[in-house]
């Protein structure tokens, strides 16, 4: 079995089950800390007063929306290249959470934009490419639902994910390449133009969102494994012994 042991759904299922609660607990703890910092401990901003506090959920959601897409595209690519079921299931598990993060990034951004720029929305490069990311996620989910054969759906969704991944660096570089309403990068290597406690709160929330995404994805992955591997011996054995959650 060696290093590909956990490529088998039957092997990864229990491991994912053990991992998920730890990520969930870590996410919850970090979220509490992050929210205390963001909503209470961090001082007001000179120009934006309290309205800047949306940064503590907007930036984590936006980073997750991009990061999850790349991870999903990676697993999709692996599934296409190696024809592995679990890689495809992994990509399938990520899509809904990625879509959620993208939607949250857009929503929280809109409610930050209104008091700051006077508008909920603008068709600038950053916001438009993030919206395109949402359409890509939804397209991948819709494509999955539209194709009856799961293995064909795996391939189709893998290709769409790969085609769409070009959007992620565009989102990232958009504020540098074009004149955008959206501000430039707050965190540059070596010099963050942001107060230390605000940066700390943001990083705590980034990890909270990250661990939450991992936990939810692992639980969804286990569910997808049960759905797609129904009828196999390991699922039958499991069904007898697994406790109701």
């Amino acid at each position, binding site marked *: 079995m060696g290093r590909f042991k956990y490529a088998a759904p039957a092997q990864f299922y229990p491991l994912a089950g053990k991992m998920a609660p730890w990520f969930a607990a870590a996410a919850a703890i970090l979220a509490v800390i992050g929210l205390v910092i963001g*909503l209470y401990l961090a001082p007001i901003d000179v120009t934006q007063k309290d309205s800047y506090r949306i940064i503590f959920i907007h930036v984590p959601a936006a980073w997750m929306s991009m990061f999850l897409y790349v991870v999903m595209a990676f697993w999709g690519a692996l599934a296409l290249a190696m024809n592995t079921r679990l890689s495809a299931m992994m990509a399938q598990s990520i899509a*809904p959470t990625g879509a959620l993060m993208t939607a949250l990034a857009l929503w929280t951004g809109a409610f*930050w934009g209104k008091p700051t720029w006077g508008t909920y929305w603008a068709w600038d490069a950053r916001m438009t490419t993030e919206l395109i990311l949402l359409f890509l996620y939804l397209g991948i989910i819709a494509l999955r639902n539209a194709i009856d054969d799961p293995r064909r759906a795996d391939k189709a969704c893998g290709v769409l994910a790969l085609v769409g991944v070009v959007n992620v660096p565009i989102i990232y570089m958009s504020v540098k390449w074009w004149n955008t309403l959206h501000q430039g990068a707050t965190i540059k290597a070596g010099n963050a133009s942001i107060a230390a406690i605000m940066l700390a709160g943001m990083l705590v929330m980034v990890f909270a969102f990250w661990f939450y995404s991992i936990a939810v994805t692992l639980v969804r992955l286990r569910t997808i494994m049960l*759905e797609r591997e129904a009828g196999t011996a390991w699922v039958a054995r499991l069904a007898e012994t697994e406790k109701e*959650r």
Partner: protein
Amino acid sequence: MSEFFAMGGYALFIWMAYGMVALLIALEIIAVRARSKRALHLARHSDAGVDGNGGGAQLKEAE
């Protein structure tokens, strides 16, 4: 306390943003748990298919 919720006059924007995050995350957790429960239930009663139809050859249950 009411000063906290007022958020310096930006209450609408901050709580609409934070509120939606809380709501959608709660909904996602509920949805994943429901799907997980359903999948486990179907795995236990393996004569049912995921889409509601029979998973395999449909034989009348001998009663």
